[in-house]
């Protein structure tokens, strides 16, 4: 997934010399290829994220296509106001790449964990929010982010959970939902984003023969398809490595409560910080997002119908 990211970035930068990569002194090794092939388009803006985003706005104003990279705890959360005012307000073509979203930095604690970035960015007008789940979605999201030519936040979470798609995704559209598994219609449909798509698929394949959809485009969101998904099963379970407040589950609930009233179970991070440190799997367990805990919650949800 990280190779897909780097490959897409290098390809876009080689196609368009106006593409610039700005990093807040993050991305060690990740940008080796970029620096080798596109050295003149690489700007390390230093450990100064607020200034970096303002600069990206200035560069966009003079015709460049900045891709601004940081850890998602910092880009977008630390620089939310710069994104809102300097970039989104004027619909400037700047792509924000927030890496390590969710609990990737499981040992480092709250400063590097990021489970509120979708909620923060989703409320900013004109800012699209993308959240790829595997290397194929990553490539498709990078192309989409470039083609949208406006402000985009792309969330990059746990990257080594394996593929969910069987091959490249052609022409991903803004808002598009992707079905990754067809299951029984008398069960809830599992709707997930990022790392949790793999979890949903694992549960559907081993435990519960449900349909699974991936949400690579959190905003915009194809509301008609979402309503059709809600009609295609008995309720929905939305899974995300993000707070249930303002995340994808909230976005789905907002749409369906008005357009297609449905039973919805939101599986994500409750309103709390991580209490302890440990492996990524340990933290998923602490937050009730490991496969066993999620299975139990879905089973309980099914029993309520």
């Amino acid at each position: 997934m990280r190779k897909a990211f780097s490959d897409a970035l290098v390809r876009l930068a080689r196609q368009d010399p106006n593409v610039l990569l700005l990093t807040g002194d993050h991305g060690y090794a990740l940008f080796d290829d970029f620096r080798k092939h596109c050295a003149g388009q690489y700007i390390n803006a230093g450990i100064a994220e607020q200034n970096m985003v303002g600069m990206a706005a200035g560069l966009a104003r003079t015709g460049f296509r900045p891709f601004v990279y940081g850890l998602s705890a910092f880009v977008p959360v630390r620089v939310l106001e710069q994104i809102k005012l300097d970039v989104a307000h004027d619909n400037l073509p700047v792509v924000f790449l927030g890496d390590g979203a969710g609990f990737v930095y499981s040992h480092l604690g709250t400063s590097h964990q990021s489970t509120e970035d979708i909620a923060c960015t989703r409320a900013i007008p004109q800012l699209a929010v993308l959240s790829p789940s595997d290397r194929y979605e990553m490539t498709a999201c990078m192309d989409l982010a470039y083609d949208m030519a406006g402000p985009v936040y792309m969330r990059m979470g746990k990257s080594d959970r394996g593929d969910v798609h069987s091959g490249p995704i052609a022409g991903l559209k803004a808002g598009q939902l992707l079905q990754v598994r067809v299951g029984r219609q008398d069960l809830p449909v599992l709707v997930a984003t990022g790392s949790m798509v793999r979890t949903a698929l694992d549960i559907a394949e081993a435990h519960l023969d449900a349909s699974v959809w991936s949400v690579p485009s959190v905003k915009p969101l194809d509301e008609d398809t979402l309503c059709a998904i809600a009609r295609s099963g008995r309720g929905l379970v939305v899974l995300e490595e993000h707070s249930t407040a303002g995340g994808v589950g909230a976005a789905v609930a907002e749409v369906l409560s008005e357009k297609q009233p449905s039973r919805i179970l939101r599986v994500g991070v409750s309103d709390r910080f991580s209490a302890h440190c440990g492996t990524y799997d340990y933290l998923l367990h602490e937050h009730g997002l490991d496969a066993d805990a999620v299975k139990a919650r879905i089973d309980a949800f099914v029993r309520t119908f």
Partner: protein
Amino acid sequence: MDNDSLSDNRPYHPARLRRTILEMAYAGSTVHIGCAFSIVELLAVLYRHHLRYPGNDPMSAMRDYLVLSKGHGVMAQYACMRELGWLDDERHIRGYFSNGSELKGLSDSRVPGLEVTSGSLGHGFSVGVGIAMGLRRHGTDQKVYALVGDGELNEGPIWEGMLVAAHHNLDNLMLIVDANGFQAMGRTDEIIQLGNLSDKFKSFDFAVREVDGHDEQAIDAAVRALWQEQPGLPKALVARTVKGKGVPFMESRNEWHYTRLSPETYAEALAAIADGSNS
């Protein structure tokens, strides 16, 4: 009172700019008059002698950029845009702050002629650094002027941006400080001491000049000198100004950050400007 009552009708006459500011502030019953008055001469010199707008087009890709980071002074920039013929007297000046109007109380970059959305402080300078970097990459000789308030220097991103501007040798960028000695709640030195700004900027590897921010000839000379000297270094002009300058009862009176004009104070202020301009 009309323009003819002024002794000097040259473009960007400071008294006329101040009168436009008063007209807008009175029409819209707005605040921030003092913030606009302190930068009138600075903007007058920049618009008259330095800023280039090919074809008088505020959106020309070849223009110089005036980034008003201290968005609270935006009425002074509107006054200059009026001189350029970019604003409509009825709609923009007399209709300032009317419902549905385009010109806001702080700089909004969707207005042609304004380059940034500011007023949340500490944003504009960084955008200016990015513009300067973009122009440098294009290889043009366009210039970027970023005007910040001294109170605004409390904001961290400005210092981040100075480090970056110096590192990248952005000598097409000029930071201009409106050093009027006040910020929202009082005197800058009583709130967060700024110390010796020129020394600070020099230590950040900027070419620095300090000037009386109401002396147009001195401002012009300092701007010209900065562009000439110390190639490779970004520029900083520390302009010593008076908040509320031009109307004696507003000068260094911080309440004119917040106070709205009454019919009486409006008339008094207009008279003070006319007197000042003819004396």
